């Protein structure tokens, strides 16, 4: 939206405006002398522009007598400003779109932009004109078959990778792409671009999008493979174990054909095949295989007419364990949020839980005996939600977050919890500077609080003197529309969860990039196409030496069962597992997805390689993450146990809605939104000891 002004009006404006304490424009000075009788005419009513193209509108305003008003005041605005802009009367096409509208108007009393869906209504007003802009989808400018192999052999298949770009330079992943072969007896190509090489000879493969083509002449050579050799890292495996297969094509002399493509496939017959169990698994192009079901799996390696196969036996992972309920610290009159469990300086074990959408309470529990967890102190702060609670490494300082404070300053509250038995939790200070939007999550690490207010950044607050917290740094992405939800710090690296921007790793002292709390340095970020990244937990796998990032979704919708108002939300989402050994090369390799439920917070016990997931309506989930991770861990039977915290007297009765887990000293504590704090433990398997201490320290 721009305007032109009479030069006189501008002069007046500038004269008044440069007062240091006040500026005032002359809003009436530039209007048409008699707007009611004036008329706006523009030279463009419809226009078609290519992306990046511009067009200038010539507007003429005449008064009641038909005289042209010099430099009339006009406003313009676009009804699709992300696709087509208007500035100083110049239209610019940004993105394709059909019949997008730009409004031009002479400002006048009673100006009415209603009925913009009805062009006739706009046309009826002589002082408002509409320009319809169509920006056609740019024509395809280029099709490229990317990096085809240098050699083609009959009897093999090749998946062609292609890139389509349009005239604006944009990649067009949705463009319709067709393939053709000049000689189907030599090579056939599937609609999706998989090339089947049938016989020696020459052919030209053509990829076509729009009227652009890429022709790839190929010479299919006789396949000299005389045999295929297949080896594997194991002949027996459990479900979820990654077995590596290596295939080698050899010629008649036993020589290795290194350039010969080898495809892998597998066939399965599960132990419950006759009961309709379909069996499933995954094999990657480089030969990594994982089975979901117990049974026999035959892996085929194919090169030309030659195939090698290996059959491996897969047994159930057999990691199931029973869960024993130790105790419930019931909170039934309000919703419970997060928890933290720690050992106090006095050697006793404590927990703190927050409350959600209630009255600003945080409960401090003695959980030394998890079968008899008792609230030993309650702190109430001016808030409706204490969403997050954290305690420092020494167990002496707690930090709780505030949302819904009556003064809207929110922020966080720092407490002395060094002597809970005798002194209780004592508020040392409050900190809310520039955290007024409500602090949603915090983390305490080496005398600093990492706090975010559900906005776009996290602040780093020094609490070496907990009575005088002060901000020393902050971190914020620079991507368009970036947003943040949570942050977790370990080993001098902060991992934040950033919805569509995924998990972001930032060096604050342990990343070898010179980062400090005062000057954090970004290390890398994961992709996260579904945009639901809500939680993150790093996992250094002892059994593989790999570094994994556990990313958790949060997504959902309100309950919608007709006639049932008390239905909890229906949450969705899953756990994403990234292999992230190089900061600039994260690869999503696995997931853990419970159908019909949604994830919230997570915790990894690195020592025992166990993942704990608070899965909202799916309760507490305990997952074996030992060994290499690939595919869907849920289907692989890696789930060790689950527990649904039903409470008939809960805030919402019998409605598990698990918020956050924490393993601690061999037990598992978790917070449930509708029923409070729980302590359970995995029962030892026969002949085995219980799970070791999984606490942070």
């Amino acid at each position, binding site marked *: *939206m721009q*305007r032109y002004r009479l030069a006189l009006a501008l002069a007046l404006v500038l004269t008044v405006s*440069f007062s*240091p*304490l*006040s500026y*005032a*424009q002359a809003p009436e000075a530039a209007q048409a002398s008699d707007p009611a009788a004036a008329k706006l005419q523009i030279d463009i009513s419809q226009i078609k522009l290519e992306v990046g193209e511009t067009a200038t509108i010539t507007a003429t305003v005449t008064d009641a007598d038909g005289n042209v008003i010099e430099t009339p005041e006009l*406003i313009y*605005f*676009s*009804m699709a*400003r992300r696709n087509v802009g208007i500035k100083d009367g110049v239209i610019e096409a940004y993105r394709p779109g059909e019949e997008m509208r730009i409004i031009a108007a002479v400002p006048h009393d*009673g*100006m*009415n*932009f*209603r009925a913009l869906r009805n062009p006739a209504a706009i046309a009826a007003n002589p002082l408002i004109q509409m320009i319809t802009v169509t920006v056609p989808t740019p024509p395809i400018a280029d099709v490229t078959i990317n990096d085809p192999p240098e050699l083609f052999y009959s009897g093999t298949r090749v998946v062609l990778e292609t890139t389509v770009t349009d005239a604006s330079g944009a990649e067009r992943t949705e463009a319709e792409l067709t393939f053709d072969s000049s000689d189907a007896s030599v090579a056939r190509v599937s609609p999706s671009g998989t090339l089947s090489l049938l016989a020696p000879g020459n052919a030209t493969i053509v990829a076509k999008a729009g009227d652009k083509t890429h022709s790839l002449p190929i010479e299919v050579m006789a396949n000299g493979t005389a045999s295929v050799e297949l080896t594997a890292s194991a002949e027996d495996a459990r479900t979820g174990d990654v077995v590596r297969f290596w295939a080698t094509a050899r010629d008649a002399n036993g020589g290795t054909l290194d350039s010969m493509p080898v495809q892998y496939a597998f066939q399965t017959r599960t132990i419950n095949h006759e009961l309709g169990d379909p069996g499933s698994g995954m094999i990657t192009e480089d030969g990594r295989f994982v089975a979901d079901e117990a049974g026999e799996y035959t892996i085929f390696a194919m090169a030309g007419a030659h195939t090698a196969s290996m059959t491996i036996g897969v047994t159930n992972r057999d990691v199931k364990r029973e869960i024993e309920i130790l105790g419930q610290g019931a909170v039934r009159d309000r919703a419970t949020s997060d928890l933290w469990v720690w050992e106090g300086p006095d050697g006793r074990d404590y927990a703190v839980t927050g409350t959600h*959408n*209630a*009255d*600003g309470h945080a409960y401090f529990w003695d959980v030394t005996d998890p079968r008899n967890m008792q609230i030993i102190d309650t702190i*109430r702060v*001016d808030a*409706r*939600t204490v969403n997050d609670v954290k305690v420092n490494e020494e167990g002496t300082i707690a930090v709780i977050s505030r*949302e*819904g404070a*009556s003064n809207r300053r929110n922020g966080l509250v720092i407490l002395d919890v060094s002597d809970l038995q005798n002194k209780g939790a004592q508020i040392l200070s409050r900190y809310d500077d*520039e955290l*007024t*939007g*409500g602090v949603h999550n915090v983390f305490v690490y080496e005398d600093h609080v990492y706090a975010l*207010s559900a*906005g*776009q*950044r996290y602040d780093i607050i*020094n609490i070496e003197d907990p009575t005088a917290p*002060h*901000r*020393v*740094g902050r*971190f*914020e*992405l620079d991507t368009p*529309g*970036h*947003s943040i939800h949570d942050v977790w710090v370990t080993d001098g690296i902060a991992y934040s969860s950033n*919805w*569509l921007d995924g998990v972001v790793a930032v060096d604050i002292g342990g990343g070898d990039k010179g980062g400090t709390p*005062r*000057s*954090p*340095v*970004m290390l890398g970020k994961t992709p996260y196409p579904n945009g639901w990244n809500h939680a993150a937990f790093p996992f250094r796998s002892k059994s593989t030496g790999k570094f994994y990032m556990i990313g958790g979704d*949060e997504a*959902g919708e309100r309950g919608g069962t007709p006639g049932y108002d008390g239905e909890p*939300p229906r*949450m969705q989402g899953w756990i994403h597992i990234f292999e992230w050994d190089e900061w600039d090369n994260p690869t999503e390799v696995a997931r853990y997805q419970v159908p019909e439920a949604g994830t*919230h917070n997570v915790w990894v016990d690195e020592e025992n390689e166990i993942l704990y997931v608070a899965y909202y309506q799916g309760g507490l989930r305990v997952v074996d993450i030992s060994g290499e991770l690939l595919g869907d861990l849920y289907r692989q039977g890696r789930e060790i146990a689950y527990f649904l915290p039903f409470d008939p007297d809960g805030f919402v009765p019998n409605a598990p809605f698990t918020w956050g887990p924490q393993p601690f000293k061999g037990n598992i504590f978790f917070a449930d939104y509708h029923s409070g704090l729980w302590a359970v433990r995995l029962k030892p398997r026969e002949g085995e000891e219980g799970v070791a201490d999984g606490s942070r320290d």
Partner: protein
Amino acid sequence: MNTHASRRTLPGLLAVALVASVGIGAAGGYEVVGAQERTYYLYVAAESEDVVEKISFGPGGFQKIASIPVGVFPTETEGPHGLAVSPDGEYWFVTVAHGNPFGILFKYDTATDTYQGDVKLGLFPATISISPSTGLLFAANFNLHGDHVPSSVSVVETETMTEVAQIPTGVMPHGSRMNKAGSKQYSVAMMSDELREIDVYRMETSRVLPLSENAPSWMHYQEHGNGLMDENMSDHSGMGHGAMAGGSHEAMKPPIIKPTWASPPTPQGKIYVAGNGSARILEVDLESWKVTRTFENTSKGPYNLDVTSDGKQLAVTYKSDKAVGIWDLELGEETANIPTLRPIPHGMVISPDNRYAFASIEGIGGEPGSVEAYDMQTGERVGNIDLAKQAGGIVVWKMQ
């Protein structure tokens, strides 16, 4: 001219005592003072429960009609904030302020209270108003997330729910109000002590009135653009901002007035501004564009205010003093100062017939939110209804 508040608190207190004996907190528990035949319908946003309450106030007192869940994220408190009803009464609009990161304006129809559309706006869109002339909606992007940076007012075409412009404005803009003609929109910038006038037809700021000596000058805006603070703060390239200890916004002075709302213009050409941080109500003359009167030493925390259509009375919520005030604008005197039943009075709207003032009350923590009704003539509370937590935005839909 400064006018000190002359409060007539006794009638208000007596009214409270009478009211309390009837039954605090019960919907319809009041005997409505004076016969009234009309029924008023209102929408009230409950910020901490993500619902919009639809209520009526009639001869039988308050009634709750419906509780409409709003927002998109069932497990996060998203904070419905500002409310407006389309000039034809067919639609209501609510801003849901929190977002990822941008807040959303939702559109519902008044007949069935069903969703009609939405559009993303800026950071923490709060108060809204609709021009009865153009039909365009103006939403002040309050940006409560903490950064004290200039923000914007979003302009939305409400038939197609299209954001057609973002007009640059001051720091933490709030209190979107429209003149009767729908040609001017007024809001205040809480952290830069300004009253701002937007020319609705031109979709641009037409006038800025600094409300204190700490307000940034126009020259300052020209020189600094969107960077009222040091370079580090406006640089969102991600890293560090290391020199933050001990305060970050050296170039910006703290506000003195902390204005939170502007009233709609009166027929006399005045606008009243609630000086939330200074216990003042400022009267601004639209023609001279100057502060012409200051009501000093009001109750603490004047927050939201509305004026009768004849411009003779003003009703104001005092957030920090748990009270509502009614002012005679000709005398410049507060004729009633009524303690509210719960703390944190928030929204204020006067019925179109000037008969009643309705104040939304947030409450604290787990307390219910509520709405109280006051007779503009007697200064007495005549109704109260409990609603969902943190009742804030409030708008009269219609009266029958």
